[in-house]
């Protein structure tokens, strides 16, 4: 297996995404890898019309540093698109990450439905390894 130099993690502010960020940051810290934290912005959030509270970069950096990372190795990316497509693009240039990490369920997804599940769609379409972090096992 080749070394992990760069990890991407999806982050929408939900508890699941926080667990995923903690796991990804722990892995990145122990592997001396860089971490790209990706927040995908949809149509409504871009226009400021979403009912959800947009996550903040400071929160992300705090979680990553608490997990053992140097803040300079953390990149906060706000990208347009649905979460799955945004994370799939992380495997392509110029990002070319080695691994994608997501929580089991994002803030816009409801329990019991397969449709629209970012984690499941990622597994189906990704050309690089995907890690799905369940909420109750957030420690690394």
């Amino acid at each position, binding site marked *: 297996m080749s070394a992990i130099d760069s990890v991407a993690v999806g982050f929408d502010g939900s508890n699941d995404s926080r667990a995923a960020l903690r796991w990804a940051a722990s892995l990145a810290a122990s592997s001396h890898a860089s971490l790209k934290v990706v927040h*995908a*912005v*949809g*149509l*409504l*959030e*871009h*226009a400021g*019309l*979403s009912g*959800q509270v947009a996550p903040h970069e400071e929160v992300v950096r705090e979680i990553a540093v608490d997990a053992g990372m140097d803040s300079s190795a953390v990149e906060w990316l706000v*990208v*347009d*698109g*649905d*979460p*799955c*497509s*945004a994370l799939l*693009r992380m495997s*392509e240039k110029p990002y070319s990450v080695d691994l994608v990490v997501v929580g089991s369920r994002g*803030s*816009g*997804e*409801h329990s019991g*439905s*397969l*449709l*629209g599940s970012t984690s499941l*769609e990622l597994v189906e379409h990704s050309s690089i390894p995907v890690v799905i972090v369940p909420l109750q096992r957030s420690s690394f």
Partner: protein
Amino acid sequence: MMEGVRDLHLDDGITYVGAPEAELEALTRVHTTKYLDELESFCLQGGGDIDPDTYARSDSFAAARRAAGAGLEAIRTLELQGEGVAFVPVRPPGHHAEADRAMGFCLLNNIAVSAAALAEKGQRVLIVDWDVHHGNGTQSIFWDDPRVLYVSAHQWPLFPGTGRAQEVGGPSAVGLSVNIPLPRGATGDIVQSAFEQVAQPVIGRFAPDWVLVSCGFDAHRADPLGELALSTGDFSQLARLVRSFAPGPGRLALFLEGGYSARALRSSTTAVLGALLDVEVGLEPPTSGGPGREAVASAQTAQILAMAVLQDGGANSERN
């Protein structure tokens, strides 16, 4: 929308056609059976959020099938009459829906369903997308299909994140995805030049039998979701331009996509249909002077490079 149509005072000059549910066979030309089954069952169970933008109710699958069916019916009517212009003002919109994914308010890709039906009959189809957002779904469905030319001018960066100039089509369709990403604030003269300078030469070589338009009105300056700066006068000029792409009468159909200002939807509808039907209507003046000339030039370069690859016999292209 319909008030915008009524403002034309066409009376008996309008033929209203129904919106029957599209047959499954028509949908599976562009969507996977697995996705259609999942979407139907999701709706039948009551629906809910599909993503933070996209919501479905128990009757949404049927509504989406009727939206797709309306396009097919409009095309059928044009084929029978051999004249006129079809306008398909349906929701949910379609151009973000991919073969196996709903997104961006879209469940089924209405324009793709109609384009695929025409392509299956041996017709060459041009899709012009002037919605402020890139039509990622339409592009991905026809990415490697030499029967369909997809042309889009859109704000970038913006949802859905696709639509870079370097996205030119798959190995069997190099140069048949034409993307002109424009910066926020781009005015009508920029969008017009994007279609004229970048797309028109490709369209001339492609020689379409049909022209379908992803007719979003969210590039209007009053729209709350987009940041381009078009006026109704610009939409009028764009409408005349796309009409010139059609090989003859009865070969042009416009499908509503986005557009979230009720006032702009109404006045833009009147402007576009007025231009296509040669009806005099009041218009906001066309806009000019906004940013985007460099973006148009870059898109032109990307197309020239794509053609060079094609002429060299290579088949490498970049897909987002």
